């Protein structure tokens, strides 16, 4: 454990981590004030992949914004599209058929597993173990294949539509998903033995990178980061949306506040997502996937609408201010990792660089989603 140290002024140097650096997984730049291997201050610099999604949301009609939401977070795109369609459906008062709601939940949960799997692999790679990434990607491929067969695309799905879905799932998908669940459970056991139980891994994460619940509240952190600090908050339970109240699942919460707790939350979440997928497949009703009557042109009544969803990275909020036209007047995205990332500076002070980067990995940053 790195002890806090006293630093004399003028004895530090600046280390520029990123925008091209193996640990930042994208184009995040961190300007670190270093004292040897210890971090004195870390300033995160954003803007290297800013694409003005919010402005695009204001200049385009509602259906035209749909593909943009997948580009926010390319690892868990379903969750973000889900938030958008729910917000617009709420604004325009569109009824969603029950089957579509169930399929959406199944898709979002599968995508959450895929996202966590990739995070798991990349995180262990941050710690220097390359092999778990390959195993995780192999399992993730099964999910992507299933999703591709239904949606036609592997990462940026653009699958949900206002009122329903782009196209229906078939028996092949149901069978593949059913076959995937036991396979994934077996893999989770393998990961637990190969990585979670490993002494080196445990030594690197235990008591490293403490983030208190108080700090999470201060910065507005959500998702697995907050749940690893003992905050029992999950939008799916606290502000239920879609068909989530129908499912029986738990929210894993750990009180250790360290990197290992955040890791454990995500590993447990995969199991919970599998449970949701299992129940969703069992309860899947027959019926249409699009509502019978749907407005030809989506023009929500003037007003202010907000919808939060729990994505793989935390609570994603979307606010739409409508002035009654076919374009939104204001299109505001609240992305979870933006808040999570800003804790990095305060949390990493006095840590050694390798611990700090391990902690950064445990925050699960996806830079295009921070920068939007």
């Amino acid at each position, binding site marked *: 454990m790195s002890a806090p140290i006293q630093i004399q002024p003028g004895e530090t140097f600046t280390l520029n981590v990123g925008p091209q650096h193996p640990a930042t997984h994208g184009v995040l730049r961190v300007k670190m004030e270093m004292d040897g291997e210890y971090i004195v201050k870390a300033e995160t610099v954003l803007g290297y992949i800013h694409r003005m999604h919010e402005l695009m949301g204001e200049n*385009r009609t509602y259906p035209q914004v749909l593909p943009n939401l997948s580009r926010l977070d390319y690892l868990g795109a379903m969750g973000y599209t889900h938030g958008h369609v729910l917000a617009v459906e709420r604004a325009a008062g569109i009824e969603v058929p029950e089957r579509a709601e169930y399929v959406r939940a199944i898709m979002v949960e599968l995508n959450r597993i895929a996202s966590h799997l990739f995070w798991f692999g990349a995180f262990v790679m941050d710690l220097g173990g390359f092999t778990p990434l390959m195993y995780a990607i192999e399992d993730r491929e099964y999910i992507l294949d299933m999703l591709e*067969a239904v949606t*036609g695309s592997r990462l940026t799905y653009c699958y949900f539509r206002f009122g329903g879905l782009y196209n229906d799932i078939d028996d092949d998908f149901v069978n593949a998903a059913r076959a995937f669940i036991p396979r994934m459970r077996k893999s989770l056991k393998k990961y637990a*033995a190969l990585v979670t*139980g490993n002494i080196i891994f445990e030594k690197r994460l235990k008591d490293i990178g403490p983030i208190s619940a108080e700090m999470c509240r201060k910065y507005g952190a959500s998702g697995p980061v907050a749940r690893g600090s003992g905050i029992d908050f999950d939008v799916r339970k606290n502000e239920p949306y879609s068909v989530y109240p129908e499912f029986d699942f738990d929210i894993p919460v750990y009180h250790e506040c360290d990197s290992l707790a955040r890791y454990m939350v995500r590993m447990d979440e995969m199991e919970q997502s599998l449970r949701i997928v299992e129940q969703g497949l069992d309860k899947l009703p027959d019926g249409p996937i699009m509502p019978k009557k749907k407005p030809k042109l989506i023009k929500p009544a003037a007003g202010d609408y907000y919808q939060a969803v729990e994505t793989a990275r935390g609570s994603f909020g979307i606010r739409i201010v409508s002035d009654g036209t076919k374009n939104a007047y204001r299109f505001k995205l609240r992305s979870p990792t933006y808040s999570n990332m800003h804790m990095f500076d305060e949390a990493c002070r006095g840590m050694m660089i390798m611990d700090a980067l391990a902690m950064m990995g445990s925050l699960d940053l996806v830079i295009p989603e921070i920068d939007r």
Partner: protein
Amino acid sequence: MGAYFNEIFRGLQSLCIGLGITFKEFFQPVVTVPYPYKTIKMSERYRGHTELVEDESGNPKCVACGMCQRACPSQSISLASKSVEYEVEVKGEMKTKKKKVLTKYELNFTTCSLCGQCVESCNFGAVTFSKDYNLASFRKEDFHFDLLNRLKERNS
């Protein structure tokens, strides 16, 4: 003292478990596909760039209504049409009618986000997805697809 040795033994044990797993995987079959030599068939619903659909006579089904152009989020589609007069028999009488014929349908693939809004917005089923994914070039002009031309090439 006990805790000290306990931790060493626990650590050694965990390392051996990890080694056991990777050793088992060493003898498992390879799961990757040697890509350029072998490719995977794209799924039925794969969304590649768009293609025009032809009718029975080999002409594009497109009536140049411009719905796809309006639906496109990134203004990637530009189309042009001309009016032609044609004769049709209505109630035993020959009448001259006008219709629009597509003369140009250009897809700017560099800005296309493969969302499929154009395919969905088309009321005539005139646009569909292709299964092409091996698209690479050094020049961006190569991605300004003239879909009408591609259709003609496909037919010839």
